[in-house]
């Protein structure tokens, strides 16, 4: 059966009208000069951590592989500046786990490694191997190694690629700027994947609060010369959080519902972030692995909010300095957006591969409601994109009732935070549910 393109998004459940605060959407990205030092943690992806391939004192060049793992679900790490490895030390990641990190003191030269050359990627196997070597992980924030996603099991037939440019997190505009500044890379990346994986159609999904992005991409996709067989189209989505969450996105674009515990490939879909797709094009052209990242720097405590392209591993404090520093005392610093981002204990942490934003909030934005009693208003139930009952799950989590947690499908929660955002009593719903998921995992699967 011939697949048709949707003309409007399919119905999805729940969600929230979060404030957009896309303050940096119209500002051209700045490129930061190399910092004096970068810190590259061995765990910047979902999967096995890497082991350093370099020793303290060794000289490294930009794009040189400095850490790798033999595990399938993992992604190598490359030097983002040229200079000398000054230390390999344990650091704490934003999530609280400890990992080794390679510290490179920059020589300020940014000398590119001779290993950096366009990869051979004509056949699918070579392409997947090349993507693995590039160190690419899902740049939307999840950080899932890209080659794993592209290595589709033989028994699964993919027909649709969804390019995720929804960017539903407030403040964050990194993908938005990528789409505008590198629209052609987005399309060459799409065509590379489209041809190699023999997909039928590509849907670029953009929330309708970004009309300029929709217009620019549409102009390319609708042209007969660029897209002769009309295999790529843009789908404007309702700007309603969390449209960009994988399961919600697939539902909105294709009306397919991923069965509980299954993956996008089980419904014939491949979802890739727009910046990831554009990176593939750049990598195929130049062979430069993932060593820089565009991050949105915003929040009331930042003097000059903007997108900055930085070497991965640059310390947050250095980037904020580049953006004019703090204009007021920061009370909360987030890695990622305000809905799912992690609050940091210090601005000395480095930017990671999948990082798309750093927000520094002042006193007013950092303060949250004191929780009061649940009034059973149902706003959490109405908002849950997974159709769960957050308020019940919160009770079962607090009671450590693993059986009830499982009965009420706690593991289906993707922790988007819509329930807590909506709660008029300020209850920490998703926070309790996270603990509940931990209890279920600890208690063994059903």
């Amino acid at each position, binding site marked *: 059966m011939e697949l048709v393109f949707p003309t409007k998004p399919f119905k999805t459940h729940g969600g929230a009208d979060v404030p957009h605060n896309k303050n940096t959407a119209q500002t051209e990205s700045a490129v930061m000069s190399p910092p004096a030092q970068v810190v590259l943690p061995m765990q910047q992806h979902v999967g096995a951590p890497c082991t350093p391939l370099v020793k303290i004192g060794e000289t490294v060049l930009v794009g040189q592989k400095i850490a790798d793992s033999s595990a399938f679900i993992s992604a190598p790490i490359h030097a983002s500046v040229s200079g000398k490895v000054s230390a390999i030390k344990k650091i704490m990641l934003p999530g609280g786990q400890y990992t080794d990190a390679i510290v490179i003191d920059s020589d300020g030269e940014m000398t590119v490694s001779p290993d950096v050359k366009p990869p051979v990627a004509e056949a699918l196997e070579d392409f997947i191997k090349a993507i693995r070597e590039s160190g690419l992980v899902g740049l939307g924030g999840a950080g899932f190694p890209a080659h794993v996603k592209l290595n589709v099991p033989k028994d699964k037939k993919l027909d649709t690629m969804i390019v995720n440019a929804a960017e539903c997190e407030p403040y964050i505009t990194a993908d938005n700027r990528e789409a505008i500044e590198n629209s052609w890379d987005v399309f060459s990346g799409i065509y590379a994947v489209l041809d190699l994986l023999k997909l039928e159609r590509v849907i670029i999904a953009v929330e309708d609060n970004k009309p300029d992005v929709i217009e620019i991409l549409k102009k390319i996709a609708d042209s007969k010369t660029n897209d002769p067989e009309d295999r790529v189209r843009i789908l404007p989505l309702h700007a309603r959080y969390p449209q960009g969450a994988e399961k919600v996105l697939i539902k909105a674009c294709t009306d397919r519902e991923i069965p509980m515990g299954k993956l996008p490939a089980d419904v014939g879909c491949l979802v890739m972030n727009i910046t990831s797709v554009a990176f593939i094009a750049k990598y195929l052209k130049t062979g430069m692995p993932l060593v820089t990242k565009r991050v949105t720097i915003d929040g009331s405590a930042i003097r000059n909010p903007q997108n900055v392209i930085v070497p991965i591993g640059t310390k947050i404090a250095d980037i904020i300095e580049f953006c004019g520093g703090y204009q007021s005392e920061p009370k909360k610093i987030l890695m*990622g957006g305000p809905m799912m981002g992690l609050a940091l204990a210090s601005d000395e942490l480095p930017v990671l591969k999948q990082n798309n934003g750093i927000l520094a909030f002042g006193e007013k934005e950092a303060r949250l409601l004191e929780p009061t009693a649940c009034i059973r208003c149902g706003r959490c139930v109405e908002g849950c994109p997974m159709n769960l009952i957050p308020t019940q799950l919160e009770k079962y989590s607090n009671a450590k009732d693993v059986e009830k947690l499982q009965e009420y499908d706690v593991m289906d929660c993707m922790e988007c935070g819509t329930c807590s955002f909506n709660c008029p009593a300020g209850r920490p719903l998703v926070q309790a549910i996270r603990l509940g998921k931990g209890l279920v995992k600890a208690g063994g699967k059903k």
Partner: protein
Amino acid sequence: MADKLIVSSSPHIRSGVTTRKIMLDVILALTPAAIASVIIFGFKALVLIVCSVASCVLSEYVCRKVMKRENTIGDLSAVVTGILIAFNVPVGVSPFIVIFGGIAAIVVVKQMFGGIGQNFVNPALTARIIMMSSFPAPMSSWNTPFYYLHQTDAVTTASPLGILKEGSSGTMPTLLNMFVGVRAGCLGETCAIALILGGIYLVVRKVISPAIPLSYVGTVAVISLIAGRNVLFDILAGGLLLGAIFMATDYATSPINLKGKIVFAVGAGVITMLIRLFGQLPEGVSFSIILMNLLVPHIERLTRPLAFGKERVKNEN
């Protein structure tokens, strides 16, 4: 700097809707009906509303103090209960009756079960039933609209449902009069247009879902039609609109999920009409809602929404 940063689990922003703002919206939505009650039944209506609200707020304050819990009168839910209790009495009752009702609603029904969100029956409706059984005579004696304009002492009449059911003497008001509230009845229940306005406001402000009022009134209308009664009369009479818009939608005592809300409201509609058709009482809104309140946990369990992706798994196995 490290020790000065707040580290908390996401999300880091909130919608801005708070319990207090929701209750404020409900109070605002009740205001047209309150104004109507003062116009129709005179200054005494305002006295009753003020006494009832004061009784509820004070009861809540004292209760929390005695129980050594944080003060919650700021959430304004006691004010809403107070207004609703006054809306459920005839204008002729003594202020002491509503004060008694307020204490019963807040102390016994609400705070003894843990406060806001924890009570399993509607406090205002339970108070109405307690007041009705404690003071049956004043609670069922109705003054004619605008009685206060006449120089004579309180003029009493029968309520429209009373006329219909018991054949009590009195002239049946026209449907138009019933729509604007010129009929005998409890303070807040007579002016349909004011109640509907309040309901629309609550739906627009997303404080309530229209599911409960529409299914409730719709069910009453369908049964009324089948029974060969005057459908508009059944909708406008008694406390149906007040109950369907403001009492059956009470968060604590109605189902949390959409399907549950519909089942709950249809059930309340059926019971209301069963009482109106076959019961000994002329009116059945209070009892229907309270009976359905008791079934809420069961309704919620039976109408639980299917989690995302769950059906598919079932079909495959």
